[in-house]
């Protein structure tokens, strides 16, 4: 296996520092257990290798190789300036204490390594240790900013290659924080990956196109990262209402801009575009339960995403404010977040200490509201309609990072026969990331999606297959992966497609509300469309 011998390799030589071949990887469970049958990671084109900085088999950010000495110095100095600002109260109060804790106290014990699905699935490639990039940034900080002895903190050469590769490497982490969970001291190496991303974005303007230009910037210019404006989104939702009513036999009308409603429901707009059955199911359930609710057509308020969570505090704050302003304008009593993990964490946890005064609208997960609907008895469910194996993916942002573990399980208990439910191992707070976390699910430039399937998504696919072992692994016996998060759903969709897992093993996926409507007594049977992916 090609891999770096030492963190100092980051500043040396040209070309990739590592390569993961299929034979380096652990075989998946049956029926995907033959490594030789697996598709290989497509190689990068020579053109891409010539133009951009590479650190491994793929490119996420696409940093052009500097052509002049001045461009090289700009990279180095920009990074150092940004890193310096990370330690200033004014510029980085948002994460200063967590950052300093993780910079000061790592004992380099490597306890966190085996918690990382990427490191594990790479066949223990050095480059993907959660500590690899952190150690580099620590050494840069101590040597070049604090001017501390390299005897104490370790040595590193800082040149344009170090900076460019380090930024690329910050996008080889899902920010799932499973590594942080295992650290005996409380060091958070995932946070350091995020802080490197922050330096690159907030100081140097270097970010993957998909999450900045086509993501948060588009959301703040148009209203949604999908490109939908308020007119288009209303049209689409009207169509969804009609289509859902046709499938369920229950007429629905999604309410828009209802002043004084109890609930402002914030969907990830990706659901409206890619999985219309999800907002349709929400509307069906909320209406049947008699909830007072609304969507908002206010600017950016019909798209609950907030990509800033992954890389940029300013972009994060801008989007969070838009969401809160829309809720305040409508005078709703609470914001309820649909099936979107990072939207959950963004608006409930992180924005908690960003929004104040009139923007402080209570925020709640849809999972608890759905659980309340089940408990209320206002909607009747027939579990036998979901008589197929079901497993549940725990989105990191909702579970490990927010502690919402049981409501979604209680809902499943109410709509799926008990003997049909299989927990993944591990699950709950110790779950593994779907592989699409921190923006990866929407990043697929060049061969990044191949790398993602082989390295980041492989552990989740392994868990799914393990959960369904013992079942008939064919299309005639459909199996449902409940992934109540748009980002996770996108990643699971992609990996199912990559391995042709529907055709070969009958594995499909969807959200939580789809399972609920599929079991609704008042709805026509067959809401889940197995053949549609």
């Amino acid at each position: 296996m090609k891999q770096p011998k030492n963190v100092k390799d980051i500043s040396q030589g040209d070309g990739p520092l590592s390569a993961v071949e299929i034979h380096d990887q652990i075989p998946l469970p049956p029926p995907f257990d033959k490594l030789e049958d697996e598709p290989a990671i497509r190689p990068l084109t020579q053109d891409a290798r010539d133009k951009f900085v590479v650190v491994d088999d793929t490119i996420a950010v696409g940093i052009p190789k500097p052509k002049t000495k001045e461009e090289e110095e700009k990279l180095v100095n920009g990074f150092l300036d940004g890193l310096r600002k990370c330690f200033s109260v004014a510029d980085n109060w948002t994460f200063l204490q967590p950052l300093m804790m993780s910079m000061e106290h790592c004992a380099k014990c490597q306890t966190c390594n085996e918690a990382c699905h990427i490191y594990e699935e790479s066949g223990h490639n050095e480059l993907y240790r959660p500590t690899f990039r952190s150690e580099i940034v620590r050494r840069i900080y101590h040597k070049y900013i604090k001017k501390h002895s390299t005897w104490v903190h370790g040595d590193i050469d800082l040149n344009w290659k170090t900076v460019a590769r380090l930024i690329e490497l910050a996008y080889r982490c899902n920010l799932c924080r499973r590594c942080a969970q295992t650290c005996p001291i409380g060091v958070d190496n995932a946070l350091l990956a995020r802080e490197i991303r922050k330096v690159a974005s907030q100081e140097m303007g270097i970010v993957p196109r998909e999450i900045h230009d086509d993501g948060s910037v588009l959301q703040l210019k148009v209203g949604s990262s999908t490109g939908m404006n308020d007119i288009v989104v209303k049209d689409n939702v009207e169509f969804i209402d009609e289509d859902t009513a046709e499938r369920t036999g229950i007429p629905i009308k999604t309410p828009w801009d209802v002043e004084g409603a109890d609930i402002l429901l914030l969907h990830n707009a990706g659901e409206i575009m890619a999985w219309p059955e999800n907002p349709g199911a929400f509307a069906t359930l909320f209406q049947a339960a008699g909830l007072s609710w609304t969507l908002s057509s206010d600017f950016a308020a019909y798209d609950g995403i907030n990509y800033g969570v992954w890389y940029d505090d300013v972009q994060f704050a801008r989007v969070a404010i838009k969401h809160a302003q829309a809720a305040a304008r409508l005078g709703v009593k609470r914001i309820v977040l649909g099936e979107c993990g990072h939207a959950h964490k963004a608006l409930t946890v992180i924005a908690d200490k960003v929004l104040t005064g009139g923007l402080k609208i209570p925020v709640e997960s849809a999972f608890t509201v759905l659980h309340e609907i089940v408990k209320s008895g206002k909607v009747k469910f027939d579990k036998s309609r979901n008589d197929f194996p079901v497993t549940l993916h725990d989105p990191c942002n909702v579970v490990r990072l927010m502690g919402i573990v049981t409501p979604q399980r209680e809902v499943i208990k109410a709509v799926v026969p008990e003997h049909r439910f299989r927990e993944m191992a591990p699950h709950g707070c110790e779950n593994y990331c779907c592989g699409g976390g921190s923006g990866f699910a929407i990043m697929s430039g060049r061969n990044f999606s191949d790398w993602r399937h082989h390295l980041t998504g492989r552990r989740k696919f392994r868990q799914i297959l393990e959960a369904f072992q013992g079942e008939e692994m064919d299309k005639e016996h459909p199996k449902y992966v409940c992934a109540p998060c748009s980002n996770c759903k996108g990643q699971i969709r992609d990996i199912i497609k990559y391995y042709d897992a529907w055709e070969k093993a009958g594995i499909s996926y969807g959200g939580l509300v789809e399972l609920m409507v599929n079991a609704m007594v008042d709805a026509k049977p067959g809401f889940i469309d197995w053949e549609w992916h």
Partner: protein
Amino acid sequence: MQWLPYVVAYAGIAVFLIAVIARFFMWARMPIHVRWELYPVAHDAKRARYGGSYFEESKWWTKPREVSLLGELKVMVPEILFLVALKEHNPKLWIRSLPFHFGLYLVVACTVLMLGTGVLGALSTSLLEGGFGTLLRGLIVATGAAGMCLAILGALGLLQRRLTEPGMSTFASGADLFNLVFFVVAFGVALVNFLLFDRDFSQTTSFTAGLVTGDFAAFSGAGGEAFLAVLTVVLLSVLVAYIPLTHMSHFVGKYFAYHAIRWNDKPLLRGDKGEAEVNKMLGQKVSWSAPHIKGEGKKTWVDVATEEFKKK
């Protein structure tokens, strides 16, 4: 010169205390930061066992938040004493780290017992007579000898691991290795002193008591014996002063890593006092230079966060 080891010991203790207090205040005085907790959160009385939170309740902000100190203690005490997180996630390191840390705890316990002996002896020597005095002296020898042995064994084990485990050896700095060697040498010299000359810890107890009572008696015995005793004091004093100046000060930081970050799930509700602190931070001027911010030290967080992008 008989006061020299006392001066060194006082200096070592003073540096330790000043450094620990300074670190404590450094962490305690840091500005508010955004929430970044990780579940399970130990003080969630009802839900910590499975990693749940108050977010599992509908309209959670209307319900009382139950914070259990007992819940925290149930996690913290085994973690501090037995390093349970390391045991769970890195057992090969744990079998080395546990004796090292437990050895240090025993040495600290031994020191406390010796100081206690000094105080009691200063009050009245009769307090140290009889069964209680015998028990106290026995505990001092037991904790001191066991502590030194365990700490040395653990440090050697950690050193071996750091030198031979590929992931650790390639990351190790000179100081990482030196720190462990320093422990081995300092406790090694103390152990030799114990085995050769001070089998009942009477010399060390008398010295420690002298630190409390101000009775700066000279170490007794011939040249070699006194030299080894002084060397022990000097090395341990320097070690005590050195620890909080390094990343080994994680025993201070760890409290904040858990309480201020990992378990800090306290919500900021409308009208809470914390809002003023957040507003103060939002008034800070940012100097981030990327084109989509251009703070230049002139715009505040509120300014940059409420700037409108040019809409299409």
